[in-house]
């Protein structure tokens, strides 16, 4: 397990705070945070007895922090109902197994409450309220789970990273194939064919660019060799996509481009050698998705990336797809931990697609209008849609510990 140093010095000891046991009748549904009074403040109560409960109510206060009404629970599905009464520094609550988050609820400022469910096997867990004066309470879970076991969470993360690895491999194959085709046209005499081949080769790279960026430490900077813009490297060393783009779209001639095409093929083949069959960590996928959206916000929205062809929206589409693929690989596990957050990210990706789709243009070889036609208000809307995904996505890496 990755080291995950949460705030140290706060002993994760149990408080003897059990305030009477309640048995489970609680709903299993996750609900959005609501104001108190519009949702039940008690997760459920039922016939008492020897069995430990499947529900816990947590009151969050500025004075006492997070106080659960019971600390002994039964294995299986657990419903956690949280009410933040007046703790202004607290807006989320988590259930941890060791330092791994197995369930949580965010966006619970004072005056709001919410419910989440988590499936637990026997063992000791921690109820964690970051920012509270008393941040941690131990939960003891006993018995045998009848539902899905928590251990499957690890398997879900694992499966997601394998799935993403296959996606990267596919894109690398496509990249080698399309750049080889591009190089061939650069040796020929058909400028339009070469321009079309350039556009065809771009998306595979933009979908997985953070993979290439991660190979900057080994002496050769593959990302710079493949994708640097003119002002980022000395002119004599400028190679790759954008040097070719300048020849094709600004100079409008193929002279000298064949050599650049061959070099590009060499570099993407090298990238495939290095990156093929890599194993990834879940948090790396989350960071990679974020990195791709940063690409959009940093250099695409300004029109700097494709400054000669003005096909930036084609790159944006590819960056977004790459980010979404990385997120999709995490989704099955993440939805177990925080269905609200997962739903928020999913719907914001959808909203981002809606914005992008406005600029599709079937008549243009890139499939989108050229960036010069995107107005300032349009760019603001696109930028807002990107940051709307980035903000919740930025919280995923910390949950995707292995």
């Amino acid at each position, binding site marked *: 397990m990755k080291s995950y140093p949460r705030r140290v010095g706060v002993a994760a000891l149990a408080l003897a705070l059990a305030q009477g046991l309640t048995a489970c009748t609680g709903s299993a549904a996750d609900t959005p945070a609501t104001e108190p009074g519009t949702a039940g403040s008690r997760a459920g109560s039922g016939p008492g007895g020897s069995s430990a409960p499947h529900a816990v109510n947590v009151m969050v206060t500025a004075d006492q922090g997070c106080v659960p009404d019971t600390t002994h629970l039964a294995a299986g599905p657990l419903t956690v109902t949280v009410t933040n009464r007046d703790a202004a520094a607290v807006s989320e609550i988590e259930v941890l197994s060791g330092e791994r988050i197995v369930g949580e609820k965010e966006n619970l400022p004072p005056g709001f409450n919410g419910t989440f469910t988590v499936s637990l096997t026997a063992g000791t867990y921690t109820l964690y309220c970051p*920012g509270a004066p008393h941040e941690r309470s131990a939960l003891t879970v006993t018995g045998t789970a009848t539902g899905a076991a928590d251990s499957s969470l690890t398997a879900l993360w694992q499966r997601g990273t394998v799935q993403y690895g296959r996606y990267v491999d596919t894109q690398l194959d496509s990249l080698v194939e399309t750049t080889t085709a591009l190089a061939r046209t650069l040796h020929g005499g058909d400028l339009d064919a070469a321009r079309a081949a350039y556009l065809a080769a771009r998306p595979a790279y933009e979908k997985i660019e953070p993979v290439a*960026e991660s190979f900057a430490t080994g002496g050769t900077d593959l990302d710079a060799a493949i994708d640097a813009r003119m002002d980022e490297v000395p002119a004599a060393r400028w190679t790759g996509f954008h040097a070719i783009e300048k020849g094709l779209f600004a100079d409008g001639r193929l002279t000298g481009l064949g050599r650049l095409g061959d070099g590009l093929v060499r570099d993407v083949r090298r990238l495939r050698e290095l990156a093929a069959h890599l194993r990834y960590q879940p948090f790396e996928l989350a960071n990679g998705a974020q990195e791709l959206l940063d690409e959009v916000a940093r250099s695409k929205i300004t029109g700097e990336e494709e400054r000669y062809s003005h096909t930036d929206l084609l790159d944006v589409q590819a960056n977004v797809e790459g980010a979404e693929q990385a997120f999709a690989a995490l989704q099955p596990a993440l939805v177990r931990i925080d269905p609200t957050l997962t739903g928020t990210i999913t719907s914001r990706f959808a909203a981002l697609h809606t914005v992008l789709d406005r600029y599709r243009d079937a008549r243009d070889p890139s499939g989108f209008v050229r960036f010069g036609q995107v107005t300032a208000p349009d760019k603001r809307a696109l930028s807002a849609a990107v940051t709307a995904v980035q903000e919740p996505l930025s919280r995923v890496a910390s949950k995707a510990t292995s």
Partner: protein
Amino acid sequence: MSTAPEPAARPRSRRRFLGGAAAGIAGLTAAGATGFGLADATDLGPTGTRPRGGVRAEVPLYGPHQPGIATPAQDRLAFAAFDLTTTDRAAVQIMLGLWAAAAQQLVRGRPVGGDPAPEAPPPDTGEALDLAPAGLTVTVGFGPSFFDERLGLAGRRPAALAELPPFAGDRLQPARSGGDLCVQACSDDPVVAFHVLRNFARSARGTAVLRWTQLGFGRTSTTSRTEDTPRNLMGFKDGTNNIRGVDAPAMDAHVWVGTETDQPWLAGGCYLVARRIRMLLESWDADSLADQERVFGRAKTSGAPLTGRGEFDPVRLDARKPDGTPVIDPHAHIRLAAPATNGGLRILRRGYSYTDGVDPDTGLLDAGLFFLAYQQDPRRQFVPLQQRLATRDNLNEYLRHTGSAVFAMPPGLSGPGDWFGRQLLR
């Protein structure tokens, strides 16, 4: 060094994407490659450890009225208008709840949220971590467009929250006007004030976006009896007869909305009119002292009305020179704005000087007054006043209104667990 400068290094990923995997291939170790930001994140320290006791005492967030209106005006302003990007009322509720929680932390000099985890972005952006709140107030309001069909709140829009009519000489820029919500952050420390806007905009992402912002660098009004009347960028004391926040009868008579309102959620609140008023300072600076004083109706140095010797001497609007002409010009600012010539109407002004640098078209300073006026009903206070001023005020020659907005400011938060607009949105 005669060699040509190397181009700037290619920007690097600041996150650990595939750091381990790539370094493994290259035969390096990834240990210690914890990435940018971790040192910062772990150095934030526990909450509540910032130095306290700035020159200005902490201003409580909770009370019958929002702070930042009747409370003494601080030196610095950071103001923002937001537009909603959602139709989901629950999302707006949560955003306003997060804003209220953040405001309660910040006015006490504490960071937003709890302690950061190394693997997650810190909940507070951090630039104000070592700073005292310096009298920070956070004030939130709702524009007319907040009550359109998107959230289904049309029935809760107060009649007095009407779009302002056009005024003579308006040069309003849409990008500096309007907005679904507003946030006014005032502090004696500009970093503390800006920090509020930045963190509010962050927690709004996906729910609302910044429409425009305005920074102000010097208060132009006094709202207490202990402060001197400040000067505006024209060098004049303006607002000598402003309503003082401690003058409860005047606040009740002219500013606070009472039980007479058509919308009970607004009782205890008020309305804010914001106007970005650019001053043509190059022209003003070329005007003679006598004419500048004629335009205002006050002496520049002392601030006294032209009919008196001291700043607070009564303004005698009927005084005449030996030749029979009025001492205070018929179109002097002081005359047209005086309650005595406006049927007794008054407003609480709480504006700030601003500059946004150089006008790229003309090379002239883009600077002036960010006018903020609190009142009970703009339809019978700001609107008739501005209609008068816009057509007759001597000052118009030197002013351009470039931005405009109106907001309903709900009453104060009752305590922890209450949030901005709760009575409106519940």
